[in-house]
C-alpha cells in the first residue's frame, strides 16, 4: 500500500528492525539506518556476544522477537566485514547447515 512510508529515497531496510550477524558470532539487533563505506548504522541496538552470554544466538534472538528489543546502545556502526548477514528481525530464521 502506498502512502504510508514517509522516508522516501532510503534503502528498503531503512527504519526496519534487523538482525546483523557477524562471522565472529557477534549479533546485533537494531533499526537499520543506512550502509556506508564505514559500515551499517543501526539505532536502538541490542548486542549478543557469545563469549559473555549464556544464551545461544538463536535463543537470544527468539527472546528479542517475543519480548522486544532490549536496547544497549542508541547508535552503533557495525563494520562492513562484520555485517555478513542482515535480515529483518520479524523474518529471522537460523541459517541451516
Amino acid at each position, binding site marked *: *500500500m502506498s*502512502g*504510508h*512510508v*514517509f*522516508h522516501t529515497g532510503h534503502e528498503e531496510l*531503512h*527504519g*526496519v*528492525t534487523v538482525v546483523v550477524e557477524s562471522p565472529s558470532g557477534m549479533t546485533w539487533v537494531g533499526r537499520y539506518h543506512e550502509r556506508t563505506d564505514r559500515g551499517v548504522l543501526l539505532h536502538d541496538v541490542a548486542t549478543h556476544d557469545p563469549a559473555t552470554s549464556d544464551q545461544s544466538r538463536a535463543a537470544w534472538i527468539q527472546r528479542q*522477537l517475543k*519480548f*522486544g*528489543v*532490549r*536496547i544497549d546502545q542508541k547508535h552503533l556502526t557495525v563494520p562492513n566485514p562484520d555485517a555478513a548477514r542482515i535480515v*529483518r*528481525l*520479524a523474518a529471522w530464521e537460523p541459517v541451516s547447515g
Partner: protein
Amino acid sequence: MPYHEMMVRPMREEITRHGVQELRTVADVDAALGPGDGTVLVFVNSVCGCAAGGARPALALALSHSVKPQQLYTVFAGQDLDATARARSYFADFQPSSPSVALFRDGEVVHFVHRHMIEGRPPQAIAADLVAAFDKYCSPHRAAKGK
C-alpha cells in the same frame, strides 16, 4: 522532545475516531488499566512515519471486525510522556517500542504486537494479525470457556 500539538492532532484523531479512548495522564491510565475483568486493547501511538503510518490504518481496519476488545485505549509515545510510561508499566515484561499494541484479558497481557511486527508490512497484513488475536482472545464464547 514532543512535536507541536497541531502536527500530531490528526494522528490522535486517526485513532480516536474509531472509538478508542485516549489516555493523556497517569490518572487516566490507572483508571483505565487498573484491576478489572474483560478484554482491553492499548495502542501505543507514535509519530514515526513508516511504522505508525501502517499501524494506525491497521488498527482501524481491525476494529471493523465483529469481534474486538471490550475496552479500547491509546497513549501517545513521545507526546504524553508520563501517561505512556505509566501504560508501559502495565506491560513491563515487554520492551518499550512504538507503535505497539497490547491486548489484555482479565488483567493479563495475552498478545503483544511489537514495532518489528509492524515495520514494512501493509496495514491489511497487520490488521489480519490483530483480527486473529481478537478472535482468539476476545470472542465471548472462548472467553467464557477460559481459552
